[in-house]
């Protein structure tokens, strides 16, 4: 256990991002451990040897600095920021950091009672030499932070280990963010975003995967992971050739193929948007990411059957609209969804999402031969199955060479998931080699 004492306590409404993930958690329970995620931080060479007491002190400083790490989910629900408390720290000698990460991630957080951070320190040493920490395992509750938020925590931890202090003022805290979102500036942002949802919800297909597959697995949720260096190289080449990001290339290809599989003329995908475009939110430790709305095929002259370069050109403004729609008030969106459902006489929800979880990348050129040869290294695996998920089709880009589809097989069979991923690879490689 380590004790911490922060500067303030208080309560505030949940932020937009917290509300969005809270809804997803409620819809996915009891399988909501799905949203836990973590990081293994190797103690940098320049910080060794680091004692358990020293690293623990660093963890305490992190919790004091970033209020998200000492905020519980209060009633109604709300943010319940505590100023002091004790955080359990597990010390495991000679343990495998990856197994610890899996173990600490395996159970859902007790949102009202448990600190949103689980910590384990891996140590080495023993009777002959002094015990030292080699790895820090951090598992986060998604109510506390998203991927980019935890990246900030990890940076601070590394800084502490190397320099013994974390310089500078902390970034904007979730309590203050919730208050900004209710201010006139926040409401203006919300209005701009909800106008984009409103416009599209009147005309997108009610849902993307609307025909039962007839061959559901038991349990029905399955994940297939495509590992493909060829996709990585092809995507980079396309991004360079068309002056866009690999993320936009992938989102466009994913969307075009959803159109092919489902037969819809216009396709709506919900990309997870970081919502860190402003200077004030860029380094905040909290969950800012939310779903945006990306629509392709509804604009004239950019039907989904168009050539890939034309689709990319149409995707460019559509991506910016999706980014802006991401930073929205979930209550506005709920109202728009309900109204669209009433007016159209059918519930409207794409149930089709895209999450590019990479932080940053350097794009490089690869020659034809390299891309062709890389196809021999492609593999596919099925690492996950569960009962509940708040979506029917989720694409995750976890690193440059790994793309997964987590699907509800009641709506897309396992065989079709596999075919989809291989078609995605083929589309990208063929376009790159064109």
């Amino acid at each position, binding site marked *: 256990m380590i004790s911490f004492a922060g500067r303030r306590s208080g309560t505030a409404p949940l932020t937009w991002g917290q509300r969005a993930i809270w809804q997803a958690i409620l819809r996915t329970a009891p399988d909501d451990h799905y949203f836990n995620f973590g990081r293994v931080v190797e103690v940098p060479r320049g910080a060794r040897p680091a004692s358990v007491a020293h690293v623990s002190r660093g963890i305490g400083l992190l919790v004091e600095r970033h209020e998200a790490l000492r905020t519980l989910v209060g009633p109604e629900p709300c943010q319940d920021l505590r100023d002091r408390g004790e955080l359990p720290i597990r010390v495991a000698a000679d343990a495998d950091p990856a197994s610890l990460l899996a173990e600490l991630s395996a159970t859902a957080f007790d949102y009202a009672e448990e600190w949103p951070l689980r910590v384990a320190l891996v140590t080495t040493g023993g009777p002959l030499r002094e015990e030292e920490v080699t790895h820090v395992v951090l598992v986060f509750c998604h109510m506390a932070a998203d991927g980019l938020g935890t990246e900030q925590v990890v940076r601070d931890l590394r800084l502490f280990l190397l320099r013994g202090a974390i310089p500078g003022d902390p970034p904007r805290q979730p309590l203050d963010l919730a208050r900004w979102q209710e201010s006139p500036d926040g409401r203006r942002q919300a209005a701009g975003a909800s106008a984009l949802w409103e*416009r599209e919800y009147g005309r997108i297909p009610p849902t993307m995967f609307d025909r039962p597959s007839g061959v559901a697995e038991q349990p029905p949720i399955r994940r297939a992971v495509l590992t493909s260096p060829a996709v990585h190289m092809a995507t980079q080449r396309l991004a360079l050739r068309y002056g866009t990001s690999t993320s936009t290339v992938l989102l466009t290809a994913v969307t075009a193929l959803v159109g092919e599989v489902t037969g819809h003329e216009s396709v709506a995908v919900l990309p997870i948007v970081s919502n860190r475009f402003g*200077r004030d939110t860029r380094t905040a430790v909290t969950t800012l990411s939310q779903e945006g709305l990306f629509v392709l095929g509804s604009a004239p002259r950019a039907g989904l059957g168009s050539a890939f370069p034309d689709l990319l050109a149409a995707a460019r403004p559509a991506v910016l609209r999706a980014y802006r729609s991401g930073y929205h008030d979930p209550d506005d969106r709920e109202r728009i969804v309900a109204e669209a459902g009433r007016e159209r006489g059918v519930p409207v929800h794409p149930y089709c999402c895209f999450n590019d979880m990479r932080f940053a990348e350097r794009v490089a050129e690869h020659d034809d031969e390299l891309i062709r040869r890389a196809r021999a290294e492609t593999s596919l695996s099925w690492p996950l199955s569960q009962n509940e998920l708040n979506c029917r089709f989720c694409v995750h880009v976890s690193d440059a060479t790994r793309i997964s589809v987590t699907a509800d097989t009641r709506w897309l069979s396992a065989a079709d998931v596999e075919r989809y991923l291989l078609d995605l690879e083929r589309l990208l490689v063929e376009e790159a080699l064109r």
Partner: protein
Amino acid sequence: MLKERLAELVAESCDGEISKAEALEATVPLSYLGVTSLAQMRLIDAIEREYGVEVDLGGDISFLDSVDALAAWLSAAR
């Protein structure tokens, strides 16, 4: 002066991937120099805050592709 400041915001938005001078002198669309959609969103946010304008993403947004076009758009929008 306006162009100088806009070029600075472009450079900041893409974490220095291109410099202020490169943004000013670019002869190809900025997106080909490394101003990705993410950098464009940062740029839009910075411009909206600094100049109190609102960028309509439903319309033509090709003005994001050069400092000259940005300056012209901004002068008309203010």
